[in-house]
């Protein structure tokens, strides 16, 4: 599951706290996608996170300026949504699903093991060790719509399906040491900031990576293929709907 790769991870630099002209231009570009500019606020805050590694006061001011809102109005929105972070996030945000189904299938055990292994609590970033190329933050998350792959772990919002406590500890170790990790249903996992940039609407050209789906996605279709089951042939259906069909 975690495939070692040679691509280096960029070394984090001190976070600049100003919003530069390029980012201002991109914030305006996002706002211009919509009939009313304020609709761009969520993707704009994603862009702020991609630049600053969190929602900074400067980022809030910039969004407010572009949209003609007060900083308080923007703050009020930013604090509502769980993906917007007010403290710095590591290079990799590891989210363990602990909603009922994943929890029961092993998510609770995985989350407990990772807290112990990384020596962190929920919503905290593990200390960077001398040998680490990257930092990891841990949180528990709610249902991420991959229940057929339970227990599910997300890394920077990419799927890591069917985890165990052992696979999850290996996963975070690989992330920290920069071994490079590929999503079980997607590309090599990019940094959290790069992910936030995609969420702001700037596609990174990785759409063709990974499969159409894993085995559970395809299971029903596979059975239908094996047994020759299909939807009815349209030519064999009477042209008019039956009486009472139209509701």
């Amino acid at each position: 599951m975690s495939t070692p790769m040679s691509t280096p991870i960029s070394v984090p630099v001190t976070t600049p706290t100003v919003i530069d002209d390029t980012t201002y231009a991109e914030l305006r570009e996002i706002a211009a996608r919509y009939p009313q500019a304020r609709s761009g606020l969520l993707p704009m805050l994603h862009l702020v996170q991609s630049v600053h590694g969190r929602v900074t006061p400067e980022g809030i001011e910039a969004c407010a300026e572009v949209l003609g809102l007060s900083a308080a109005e923007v703050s009020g929105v930013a604090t509502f949504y769980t993906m917007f972070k007010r403290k710095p996030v590591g290079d990799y945000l590891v989210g363990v699903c602990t909603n009922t189904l994943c929890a029961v299938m092993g998510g609770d055990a995985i989350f407990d093991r990772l807290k112990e292994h990384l020596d962190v609590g929920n919503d905290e970033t593990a200390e960077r060790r001398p040998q680490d190329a990257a930092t990891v933050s841990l949180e528990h998350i709610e249902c991420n719509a991959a229940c057929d792959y339970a227990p599910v772990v997300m890394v920077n919002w990419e799927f890591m399906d069917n985890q165990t406590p052992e696979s999850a500890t290996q996963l975070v170790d690989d992330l920290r040491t920069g071994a490079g990790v590929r999503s079980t249903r997607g590309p090599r996992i990019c940094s959290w900031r790069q992910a936030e940039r995609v969420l702001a609407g700037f596609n990174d050209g990785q759409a063709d990576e990974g499969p159409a789906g894993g085995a559970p996605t395809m299971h029903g279709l596979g059975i239908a293929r094996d047994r020759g089951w299909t939807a009815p042939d349209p030519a064999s259906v009477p042209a008019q709907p039956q009486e009472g069909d139209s509701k």
Partner: protein
Amino acid sequence: MTDTLTPVLTRNWDADRSWTLASYEAQGGYAGLKKALAPEFGGPDAVVSAVKDSGLRGRGGAGFPTGMKWGFIPQDNPKPKYLVVNADESEPGTCKDIPLMMASPHTLVEGVIISSFAIRANQAFIYIRGEVLHVIRRVQRAVQEAYLAGHLGKNIHGSGYDLDVVVHAGAGAYICGEETALLEGLEGRRGQPRLRPPFPAVAGLYASPTVINNVESIASVPSIIDNGAAWFSSMGTERSKGFGIFSLSGHVTNPGQYEAPLGITLRTLIDLAGGMRGGRQLKFWTPGGSSTPMLTAEHLDVPLDFEGVGAAGSMLGTRALQLFDETVCAVRATLRWTEFYKHESCGKCTPCREGTWWLVQTLARLEKGQGSEADLDLLLDQCDNILGRSFCALADGAVSPIQSSIQYFRDEFVEHFTSGGCPFDPAASTLFAPAGASAS
């Protein structure tokens, strides 16, 4: 006699690079769009009629007839009309729209174009929850490919019809799956539901006429236009027409996506999925996510359509079939769902904001074995004070697992305080349960 499984939406998922435009078109994709735009089809009203005649009901949980919803758009309103796709799939257990958009985003995009044409919208939005990065990439790319192919933009295929589509990423809020909260999010505000009326059909996005439909509803439209309303309504049951994706998860041998006519039973689905894991017994299950009251092994033969599940005391919801075997503590499961609703309550309505908090307090005490039988009555009384007293259905969903688990597993709640704690071993329920782990 219709086959047991009927792949329509899932039919092309095993094609090579199924998410690309080339693959989708090689499988017959965008044929429905060409038909809908052709003058001989009869224009937007004919598309609305076809969807009405098909009997398609909303696939996001509520089951409202899709064509009727479209018909509510006041066409004499001078404001722009909007189509908004609800791709904020977050209901616990629900995992059908995400794999659909991952494997075949063009099915959704084609549906968006036909549906927007039908309601005379020139601007559509696909609101995808933010926590599914690769799915967002694929939908972004599919929209881009559709523009390049002339399926989107100005004067689509010479029809004179213009449409622009924006893919919008959410930012983490279950409540934004509620349609008016979603509109708030899409307007750049806190995702808190609006009081209705007015309904979005009259005053939705930017106070303009707006249709909001679930991904699977919209994705079903191209097949209806291509194959005919009668074809669609030849599947399913009398009042629940067509096919749907049934998502099996939990203690079943082969969890996954099974596309079948509405009305299939859980017994058949579990059989197709290779039975319950390890030969264990089904204890309880949700028919359509955690907000639909749980059912038990007594309900294996309930037809999974809107009427059948309703008659059994629950709701079809999103066909999110979460299956739990006898190793699982019903109290633990209920507490965890309740903690979810407490976390996700947007805070607008007092009964929900305060009520879900109190439910967690009471349940957590029971789960630890510190409660008493009076706490069960207290819980049910709290539920009565929450149900139906808020703007949206989140609070109603929150009481479903509690009321239904007490209905079916009251003895298990009692056992927690008579034995001073949970009698179950959580390790026994895990995917990686050690050999010999048992239920108690």
